[in-house]
């Protein structure tokens, strides 16, 4: 497959679990600095697509190229190190560490066994932690055990942990699930801020929220792309209304 200018080029991607094709011949391209939202009914394969990109699930066919590097052959930590960050559906933070430690542990230095044993908290790390904490609105909670954060703040913290790694591609699975209206607005602002110098893929059900953030929307249905394009175009699409937006 030829090289492209896209940050992420997914081509003919297929994965089948015992004959059931969760993702079926999917082709999708993500531009630099683009914020793409994946929508679709439950079981459409949205989360599976993210799992395939970050290496959690191995594909049965097709290719995923990130900056023209094939990802399907790499292991999870190699994919992360090449610049792909992934946030899980339920907030995955280290509850027994403080907010500061959660961010510090995610700093992309000292990633080997011996590197981590000799890792020192330099001014650079300190600055990065404070910068990210300001971004995710958690500066005043830095010394608090992260288990005590509210649900929404935990979601932000996990996004912050990814930002510490300065990924070129950030993938967020339902980042506003369980958030209050105010928190949703703050998250939309946050996403609009952080996609300035990176590409972002978001899975989201809340159409109001999608409208606020999406540059382009991809609608998945039964592992295939049903429609793709700007929000207004997709919302007007008859097939989309029938299978997804209708109910």
């Amino acid at each position: 497959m030829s090289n492209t200018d896209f940050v992420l080029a997914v081509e003919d991607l297929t994965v089948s679990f015992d004959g059931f094709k969760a993702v079926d011949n999917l082709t999708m391209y993500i531009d630099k600095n683009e914020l793409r939202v994946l929508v679709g009914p439950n079981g459409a394969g949205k989360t599976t697509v993210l799992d395939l990109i970050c290496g959690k699930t191995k594909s049965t066919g097709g290719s995923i190229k990130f900056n023209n590097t094939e990802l399907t052959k790499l292991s999870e930590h190699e994919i992360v190190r090449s610049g792909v960050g992934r946030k899980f559906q339920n907030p995955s933070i280290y509850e027994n560490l403080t907010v500061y430690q959660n961010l510090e542990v995610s700093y992309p230095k000292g990633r080997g066994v011996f590197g981590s044993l000799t890792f020192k908290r330099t001014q650079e790390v300190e600055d990065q932690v404070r910068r990210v904490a300001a971004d995710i609105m958690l500066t005043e909670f830095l010394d608090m055990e992260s288990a005590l954060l509210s649900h929404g703040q935990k979601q932000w913290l996990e996004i912050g942990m990814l930002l510490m790694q300065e990924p070129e591609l950030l993938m967020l699975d339902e980042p506003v699930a369980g958030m209050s209206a105010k928190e949703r607005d703050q998250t939309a602002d946050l996403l609009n801020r952080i996609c300035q110098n990176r590409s972002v893929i978001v899975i989201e059900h809340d159409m109001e929220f999608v409208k606020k953030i999406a540059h382009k929307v991809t609608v998945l249905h039964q592992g295939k792309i049903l429609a793709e394009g700007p929000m207004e175009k997709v919302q007007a699409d008859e097939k989309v209304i029938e299978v997804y937006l209708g109910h």
Partner: protein
Amino acid sequence: MTLWEKMCASDLLGGKQGVIGLAVLAAVIFLVLPLGVDIFRLNLIGKYLTYAFVAVGLVLLWGHGGILSLGQGIFFGLGGYAMAMFLKLEASDPITTKIQSTPGIPDFMDWNQLTALPWFWEPFKSLPFTIFAVLTIPALFAYIIGYAMFKRRVGGVYFSIITQAVALILSILIVGQQGYTGGVNGMTDLRTMLGWDIRTDSAKYILYYANGLLLFGAIFLSKYVMSSKFGMLLLAMRDKEERVRFSGYDVSNFKIFIFCLAAMMSAVGGAMFTLQVGFMSPSFVGIVPSIEMVIFCAVGGRASLIGAVYGTLLVNYGKTVFSETYPELWLFLMGGLFIAVVMFFPNGIAGIWDKYATKYGWFKDKAVTAKKPEVSTTGVETHAVLTETLSAEAAAATESTDVAASVKKTTRKKAAISSPNIRGAEA
């Protein structure tokens, strides 16, 4: 800055409370016990303290890494046997063993019709090699087991069961290969190390102190590991392994390393056991001793290095007292103790201590809170801020139920933390 202030401010020692804890333990091991009991009892305590090496290793591996090994006896035994082989060879010189049909080889080999020293025994004629072997062979063995399992992402209960199986296999192998290992009796009648008689009272005192110093070495090494980024990653892995993996870490390498380190500590304990007790046998290798060592660690507090040492001392003291008076009751008592600890005191003695120390404000740690002067809020204040933010939001937001739900969740999570799940141990 005085030395005391410096020590209290260091991350490595764990603040004022950490320094006091270490000082008290040092006083108990190096002063109170040697002055308070006779050499027979002290030698017995020295034996218990060799198990403490295993317990300290388990604090790292299990308490912090969440990896429960039920086979630490393997490494304790390998270290102990390596030392025993050296001592046995020294005790089997041709003059002492001249009545054997093959003089110059260990007595049990002669009884088993061996006529020459097996090749793998040869290098154990050298003490430097033996010390090298104590430190590397168990660690290498742990590396092989760890690599085979962690790279395949075998974990949890499966890992525990497999380590248990390996411990059983090794003890059966030692018993079965009588001619090479001394069989079920083990290696007995060990006398001297480079001509120095290890059975005299003065030797026992020296070995006791050497053992204590090595134990402190193991504790400081563990403190260093725990205070590094590696230590934070261990806690992170125990909590959310996937998150660590998808933050760019090869999780298996971290698990292999900590397993090897715990194995190495156990092996040093094993070698010190052989030196102080004067023999080594398969009864320190198999399943039962391995599980006992987990109990020492659990009783002391699986997250506390110092707690693990006290736990080891207390359980073994109890074992000695009770098995002298009611030998048949001891096993039930030990089982009951383990169940009680798991159910009511998941953090062991250290957990109970911490609870009361916090409650009554003993050893309030000024050094730690003063460390980051730029952050004005302490833990309690931040919590108050959080509660305020949440209630303000609850009042303002239209979806107030949503916020209430998340507050509830926070409280529940808090409850879950104060009683960490230890059920893995029951399996």
